[in-house]
């Protein structure tokens, strides 16, 4: 009798939950379909007209590059300095962003911040820095400073401060305060407490996030190059605008960019796994 009632209630609940689920899925599917339809209508070319020719461009690129395969190493060698520039933009802005983000994270972490009352202020500042796309700052700075890598570095660093600052602060919140208190009891100043008490605890996770960011920043710096901030993106833009007959040069740059992104993607993923696994190892007492 009671069991029946419980079963009935359970089934009613289940049916209601399923109905909710179905309705949510229907709304989601309708939004997706309507959205694609709207995007399709506002696009210059339609999806169905364009679909047959979607492989034409890659096909033309690859077949022309295949015919002139001998010229590819030469193109790559010529574009190498700009690839190095792109990597330098990414690395410098990751470093600068990590330094700025680390400082901001410590100022925005309750318990570690030297001015606890200002923690909300620094958090909002991080939110704003994170919300500004690199492109916006880069375009403004290109107007003032002229084209080149420096606007890109400043723009990406600014965004990186916001992105890493938030992640760093989450890591620092979980750091043990015992070493900090120990250092405080022997009269260490705030920078000393942070440098000797907090940084050793958070370093592996911070480094892991930095590597993730480095990989993201390589992509970002390639895109910024495309709008005029130097590096491989700028070369790519030029190579594309030459058009047919010079597809081998464009293909060489496409290939370089692809290989670089895949390479750093794999490298950082291996390095991050090792860092995080090494840390777990340490927590289990495997290391001093």
């Amino acid at each position, binding site marked *: 009798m009671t069991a029946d009632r419980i079963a009935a209630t359970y089934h009613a609940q289940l049916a209601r939950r399923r109905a909710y689920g179905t309705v949510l899925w229907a709304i*989601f599917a309708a*939004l*997706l379909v309507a*959205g*694609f339809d*709207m*995007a*399709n209508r*506002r*696009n*210059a*070319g339609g*999806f169905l007209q*364009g*679909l047959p*020719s*979607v492989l034409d*461009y*890659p096909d033309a690129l690859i077949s022309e590059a295949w015919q002139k395969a001998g010229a590819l190493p030469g193109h790559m060698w010529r574009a190498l300095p700009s690839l190095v*520039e792109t990597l*330098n933009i990414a*690395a*410098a802005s990751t*470093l600068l962003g990590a330094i700025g983000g680390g400082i901001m994270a410590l100022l925005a972490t309750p318990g570690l911040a030297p001015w606890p009352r200002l923690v909300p202020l620094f958090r909002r500042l991080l*939110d*704003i820095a*994170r*919300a*500004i*796309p*690199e*492109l*916006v700052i880069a*375009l*403004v700075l290109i*107007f*003032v*400073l*002229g084209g*080149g*890598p*420096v606007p890109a*570095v400043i723009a990406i660093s600014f965004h990186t401060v916001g992105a890493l600052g938030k992640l760093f602060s989450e890591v620092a919140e979980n750091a043990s305060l015992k070493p900090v208190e120990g250092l405080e009891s022997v009269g260490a100043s705030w920078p000393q407490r942070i*440098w000797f008490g907090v940084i050793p605890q958070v370093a592996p996770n911070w480094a892991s996030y930095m590597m993730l960011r480095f990989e993201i920043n390589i*992509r970002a710096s*390639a*895109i910024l190059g*495309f*709008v005029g901030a130097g590096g491989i*993106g700028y070369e*790519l833009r030029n190579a*594309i605008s030459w058009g047919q007959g010079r597809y081998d040069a464009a293909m060489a740059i*496409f290939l370089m*960019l*692809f290989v670089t*992104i*895949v390479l750093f*993607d*794999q490298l950082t993923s291996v390095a991050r796994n090792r860092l995080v696994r090494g840390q777990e190892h340490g927590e289990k007492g495997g290391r*001093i």
Partner: protein
Amino acid sequence: MTVTTTNHPVHAMMSRKRMISLGLPVVVLAYLVYVAVAFDLGGLAGRARLDNGALLMRDFWSYKIHVTRDNRSGEISSAIEGMRNATFSAGNRPDWISGNQNFARVELPQGHVVDFAPDGLVTLITPDGRYRIRPTGSGIQTDFTDAPPNFSVSDNRFSADLPEGARLTVTRARSEVFRRHAGWELFFFDLSSPFYGKSWAELAALAVSGDRVDPEHSNLAGMGRDFWNNGIWHHGDVAWAIFETILMAFLGTFGAGLVALPLAFMAASNFAPLVLMRQAARRFFDLLRGVDALIWTIILSRAFGPGPLTGSLAILLTETGTFGKLFSEALENIDEKPVEGLRSTGAGPVQRIRWAVMPQVSPVILSQLLYYFESNTRSATVIGAITGGGIGLLLMQAMQTQKDWEHVAYYILLIVVMVMAMDWLSGRLRARLIRG
């Protein structure tokens, strides 16, 4: 003695750590110095256009009203930023401009006055003196020799930088003076609107009880329409552009989620028994991710042309790679016990996935989708600037005209607000979904 021996390895370790903690900053510093040299940071000061920067900062928060005399026809007009569609009529002209079609007196800050005479003579009156500039058929003539340092005089052009950002220029073709005002001009209503130039109190009174300005609409509807169709700021188009950017992010993110989920099963070691299939799926994800949104955008815009669909598909392809990797990791980390339990009741593979696997992974998947939705709003802004859609395109166009800096400031503000709103929304939804 014993203490010293036990101390020895500890000291060695400490000195090694000290080396690292000292050496690392040195390496970082050395690298940054190398980059500074490679990027020619020293030469940047020479190349930087600081005047551009100053102009931009001033234009971000202020606007100019130009008073222009066409020296060929002798006609005098006043307009905001010199825009044809923002030209004042005699009725709504600011009160510091007086005169008529042939003669004008312009009062500038700090006791400066500029007179345009009917015969073309321009007189600049400053607290220190009176300067006459006359445009002629071949150039300009002036009646003074000792020009103050804020003047620049040549045979063809006279210009004077006056206080508070005002400036007078005289050439053969035209004489022009402008004065700066704080704020964004015509932000709410342009000059064609009957509501232009009214104070907040007047507008509120009109909205609530006043007589109808246009008998066909209520005043509130009229204000809404005039604001939406503002000919200078185009609020309606800007709202559309923001919607388009969010649409690109939405379609790209959630479309990628739908495509990536089935593929992720093929890449997860506990679902795909064949190593070959697993490797193929994983390399496919690496390919999608490695090609990157930039290259996808270029390839797709060749086929589909510029627009939001191209941007959506570029995000969709890149994120299919990202989600494929993330989802397959989530699938590999599930608890096998519910799966075993269902298997013991005779459930088939589809039922096992539906009732044992999905409940475990769906919070992770949803949370990642929402997280990437926010981040892709930013990507959609950038991709829009390349592929021609959304607020990114508007920003790019406003930058390229190098004139409408107040519009640039407005778009930047809107982008920041949009991304922060998406961040907030995605955070709220994630918190609710994960709690249940």
